[in-house]
């Protein structure tokens, strides 16, 4: 059994290692705390810390706070913070990294349903190679039935306009070489555990 402290240290090491591999990851050291990122973010008001404070926490090794934060899960990947950062920090990519690490550590469970959407989206890709919006929507509705009534009026309108079709849910066509994607997943899993 590893102690909590040991586990914390391992996570910190993993984070440091990952920062070295993501592009320009070590630039967080150059953060000026100017706040351009948070001020530019279209959804910062939904976040507990926002990108500026999150970078400060990262730099100070307060990893547990970082991993418990909702900030990365709210990010809409608009890259405005990244484009404007005077220190050249790729903040959006840093948030992706924090999400990956949160998943690895098991610390953070996002509260806005990101996990479910992500899981269902990925499931579609792995199974069919492509994402069909009808199938994706159906699988999300099945996870949360209360949303079904919200989507009915819009769904009917789209059906009438021919924008969606019901047969696409039943037809489970996948790409020809779907085994390619299975192979890719397997290879990557092997690397992860090795």
């Amino acid at each position, binding site marked *: 059994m590893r102690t909590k402290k040991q586990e914390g240290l391992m996570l910190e090491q993993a984070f440091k290692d990952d920062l070295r591999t993501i592009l320009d990851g070590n630039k967080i050291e150059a953060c000026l705390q100017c706040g351009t990122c948070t001020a530019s973010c279209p959804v910062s008001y939904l976040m507990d810390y926002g990108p500026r404070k999150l970078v400060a926490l990262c730099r100070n090794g307060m990893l547990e706070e970082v991993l418990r934060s909702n900030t990365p899960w709210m990010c809409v990947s608009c890259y405005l913070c990244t484009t404007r950062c005077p220190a050249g920090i790729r903040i959006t990519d840093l948030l*992706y990294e924090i999400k990956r690490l949160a998943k690895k550590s098991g610390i953070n469970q996002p509260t806005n349903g990101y996990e479910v959407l992500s899981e269902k989206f990925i499931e579609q*890709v792995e199974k069919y190679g492509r994402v069909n919006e009808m199938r994706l929507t159906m699988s999300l509705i099945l996870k949360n039935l209360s949303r079904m009534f919200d989507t009915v009026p819009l769904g009917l309108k789209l059906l009438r306009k021919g924008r969606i079709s019901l047969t696409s849910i039943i037809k489970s066509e996948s790409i020809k070489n779907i085994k390619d994607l299975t192979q890719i997943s397997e290879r990557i899993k092997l690397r992860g555990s090795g």
Partner: protein
Amino acid sequence: MQKPYDISTRAIMKHLGADLVELEDWNCCGATFYHSVDELQALVLSARNLALAERMGNNLLTICNACYTNLLKTNMYLKKNANLNKTVNEILEKIGLSYHGSVKVRHILEVLVNDVGEQSIKEKVISPLKDFKVAPYYGCQIVRPFHIFDDPEFPTSMDRLISWIGATAVSYPLKTKCCGGMLSFLNKEACLGLIKDLLQSAVKSGAECIATCCPLCQTNLEMFQEDVNKKYNIQLSIPIVPFTQLIGLAFGLSPDEIGLKAMLVPLKKKIT
């Protein structure tokens, strides 16, 4: 859902004499989701598409801002990081592919503005969209993080294109402000605020329609208009059309050829 964007792109490119070949057996790049789970897998998924294109000897054209960013990112990462390049190619090898970095990733907007160009487009215009005001909406990922062909915050290429087909591009401050992207699935209420700001800003500037160049932007702005109206007690009703449909109209293509009848808020009669 995005068939109108798909067919109008194919129709105008055919009309321009460009030879589009669909990438055989392409796979979804995973949008932003794989980056949140496994970076390597995200890169390999895009690398598979790049490798397939390389095998065909073609460059890769996309009409989606998110695919565009993912493909560009993969190209750049593989070029800058030799170890990563090796790892990705080892995985590709298992499925009988390899990628040497020769494929250029292009967005349809960029190709129309920079490759096809002003003269060739103007030559094909038979019914210019006169006195028609359009708000060009670029979204995020077509110019961010990689701003290959236009400014990351105030792009102008679609504005120019709109003027070439006889219409007027209105100036409004939110043309690269985010529509909420995937957040519309997760936190619709928050997203409605973003969408309302965008729609109102375009309407205030006198726009009679918003032209989009990304499937997700188009979906968000179009599908949630009624929810916006309900939530904020306003009455917005502005057509949200893929910019390729406007070009098709100016080229004199029929509404069916460019999927015009499938749009939720129809364009005004005067141009259709």
